[in-house]
């Protein structure tokens, strides 16, 4: 124990010379910083370690309302950032999230307490997609009366209509939205922005703030001859029609153009509708495909053919019916701004594929006709609505915009992040505060410096791609086994952040505070540097002082103080180090 604290101390000491902080930054683990919604990943993973599955879901819900949806279809930037990559493989964060969310619902529906309406200012949200619903959820938690307006017959936006059922079941979306409704959000469907309601009409009805999150509702066009033929259905229209149960004739041969997730979704959906041969045409190679790796593998397993380095030139028709698609071969050139290598057409390389149906899936475009002119900007590069990148406020006061309409087509979790930011900005706007002041600054941290010394390699938990088909007796066993595996996987987390703020031990975290013995303190700065909450300052004598409000009682300073000048209210000396290590997620090197 002595040795360990010494190594930690020497690490702090080496930092001391260069890194005396002037302003307070929160130290967060890399996974949490990578997540646009700042979901407390380390917190819920450490709760799973303790077997507290229910608390883990509740912790996720503090940051965002869609644990089950993100557990299924999130891009999981947290896993890309996970520090465990240096050791073996990233922690299976998305799979863990799905497991805790599913296990909670396996026991029946979850009903939260409705939030009391403590504020009088009404807020209108346009678009019931992930951004709009998250903003509504966060504002309802703050006590605002929130109304969401949705054009389609059911809320959910792209999650409901444009992600096929085999990736994200409709009941999952319906259930998560039912939760948001139970919290106290009102959702009005079949109301179209620009027709039934406008910004003026909403203002006249007494809405004090408006959040526009209408998303990108049109498929991007290929701009090749023959695109308007009947045998060409753009991807969003195709997926929406299938989701609504409208009859779609796919014929025998289908070509999907594009390399994103929606291209793969469309290909697999077409295969499910009875197409014999489905191929995906992509102008770069497999390495540049933006689709998720396991989705590509699943598509290959279903027998979908991939053709790389081809780009459509024109659609060839026979009396108005699509007969074939003519393509050009490509080769890869220099990397472009997105870091992927730019495809360059090879001249005179035209060739044809015989197809019955063509589904272009190359991107999304906004539907600007419904948006009021004062919000739009012709010159904008990404989305049509220019906003302040931090506060999401548009040029019209009291109107905010976020989600895909601002960033261009992005992921669900980015939309959730935008929704959260919009909720913060709207709250500040309605309270009359400065929108930009005091935004939290964060700093990435991990306690592991010497990866060689950590020889604890373990295999990552690979979640089953399909739902298991079992009998009732086997299911009980399987559930137990899944729980065991999830706990095991959670223990792979290194606990990079100092304190995960999971608040698992409410009594401990809430009440305990550090106390500094002024006679012993030598002003060495260790506690000042090491404190994860920035709770320690120095007074005019150079002696450390604890800010009672900021201190979370993690005990790290007490464990590391070389003079043993810091003690805790409740913890005894013997417990302090173990508590400090427990607070950091249980990730001790031994």
């Amino acid at each position: 124990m002595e040795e360990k604290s010494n190594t930690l101390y020497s690490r702090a000491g080496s930092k001391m010379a260069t890194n005396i902080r002037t302003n307070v930054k929160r130290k967060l683990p890399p996974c949490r910083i990578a997540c646009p919604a700042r979901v407390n990943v380390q917190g819920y993973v450490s709760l799973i370690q303790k077997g507290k599955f229910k608390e883990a879901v509740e912790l996720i819900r503090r940051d965002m309302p869609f644990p089950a949806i993100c557990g299924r279809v999130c891009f999981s930037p947290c896993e890309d950032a996970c520090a465990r990559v240096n050791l073996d493989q990233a922690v299976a964060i998305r799979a863990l999230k799905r497991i805790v969310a599913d296990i909670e619902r396996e026991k029946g529906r979850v009903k939260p307490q409705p939030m009391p309406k403590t504020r009088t200012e009404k807020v209108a949200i346009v678009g019931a997609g992930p951004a709009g619903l998250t903003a509504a959820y966060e504002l309802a938690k703050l006590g605002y009366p929130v109304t969401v307006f949705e054009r389609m017959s059911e809320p959910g936006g792209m999650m409901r209509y444009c992600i096929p059922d085999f990736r994200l079941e409709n009941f999952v979306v319906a259930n998560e939205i039912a939760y948001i409704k139970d919290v106290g959000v009102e959702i009005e469907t079949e109301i179209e922005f620009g027709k039934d309601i406008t910004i003026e009409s909403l203002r006249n009805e007494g809405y004090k703030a408006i959040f526009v999150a209408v998303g990108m509702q049109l498929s991007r066009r290929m701009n090749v001859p023959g695109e308007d033929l009947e045998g060409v259905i753009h991807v969003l229209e195709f997926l929406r029609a299938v989701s609504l149960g409208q009859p779609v004739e796919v014929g025998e041969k289908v070509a999907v153009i594009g390399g994103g997730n929606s291209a793969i979704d469309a290909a697999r959906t077409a295969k499910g509708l009875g197409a014999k041969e489905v191929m995906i045409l992509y102008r770069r190679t497999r390495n540049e495909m933006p689709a998720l790796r396991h989705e590509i593998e699943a598509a290959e397993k279903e027998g979908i053919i991939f053709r790389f380095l081809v780009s459509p030139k024109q659609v060839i028709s026979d009396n108005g019916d699509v007969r074939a698609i003519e393509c050009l071969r490509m080769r890869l050139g220099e990397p472009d701004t997105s870091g992927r290598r730019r495809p360059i057409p090879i001249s005179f390389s035209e060739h044809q594929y015989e197809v019955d149906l063509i589904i272009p899936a190359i991107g999304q475009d906004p539907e600007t006709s419904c948006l009021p002119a004062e919000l739009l900007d012709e010159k904008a590069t990404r989305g049509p609505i220019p906003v302040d990148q931090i506060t999401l406020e548009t040029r019209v006061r009291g109107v905010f915009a976020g989600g895909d309409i601002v960033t261009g087509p992005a992921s669900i979790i980015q939309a959730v992040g935008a929704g959260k930011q919009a909720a913060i900005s709207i709250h500040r706007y309605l309270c009359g505060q400065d929108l930009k002041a005091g935004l939290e600054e964060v700093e990435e941290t991990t306690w592991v410096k010497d990866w060689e010394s950590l020889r604890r390699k373990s295999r990552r938990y690979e979640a089953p791609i399909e739902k298991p088909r079992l009998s009732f007796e086997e299911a009980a066993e399987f559930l137990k086994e899944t729980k065991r595996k999830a706990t095991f996987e959670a223990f792979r987390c290194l606990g990079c952040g100092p304190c995960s703020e999971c608040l698992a031990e409410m009594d401990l975290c809430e009440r305990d505070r550090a106390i500094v013995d002024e006679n012993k303190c030598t002003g060495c700065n260790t506690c000042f540097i090491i404190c994860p909450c920035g709770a320690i300052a120095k007074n005019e004598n150079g002696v450390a002082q604890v800010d009672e409000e900021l201190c979370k009682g993690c005990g790290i300073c007490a464990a590391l103080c070389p003079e043993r000048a810091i003690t805790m209210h409740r913890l005894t000396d013997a417990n302090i180090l173990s508590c400090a290590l427990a607070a950091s997620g249980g990730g001790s090197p031994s």
Partner: protein
Amino acid sequence: MSEWKTVSIRQKLIQEIEKAIQAGRYRSISEFVSEAIRLRLEELMRMEGIPVEKRKKYLAVPEQLLYTPKHTWAQITPEGNIRVGLSDYAQRHLEGIAYIYAESFGKEVKKMEPFGVAETWMFMFDLYAPISGKIVKFNENLRNQPHLINEDPYNGGWIIEIKPNNSLTLEQELKDMLSLRQYNKWVSKLEGRLKVK
């Protein structure tokens, strides 16, 4: 005088029941009687305004149903179809039920082969047909309220109705099914086996 009247009514009733049995609506007089008692009880309780949860306690008369080892029950409806649902034991494993898929109308199903799937958040469970025949009805209420299966597995939570192919095979297939007593034995055996593990 009154005594004579009762006797004549009783004789008429017996004749009616015999007709119904010959038509295949009931298998025996006792089945008719238990069905009649059930209907009468249901009506009485509805009149007295007993809430659904309490009614279930009295109403569940699983005695007259037939079961398969795969936890589906079968009941003969007045139209001569076989109504299929999930047993109480199965329902207890389906607390988080989210969706019920069944084959489309007119589809042939075979005895002890899956005719649909009950989907929960984590699992898929195959639903096994108790007899062979054609699917003629699906409980549309389940589309939006699959939790009906939990609330009322024997009445409101029925899943499909099957029209049997012919009466001869139907009789044999019904004979092969389990009575409640046999089924309960089977369930306790299953649960006992789980405990040993």
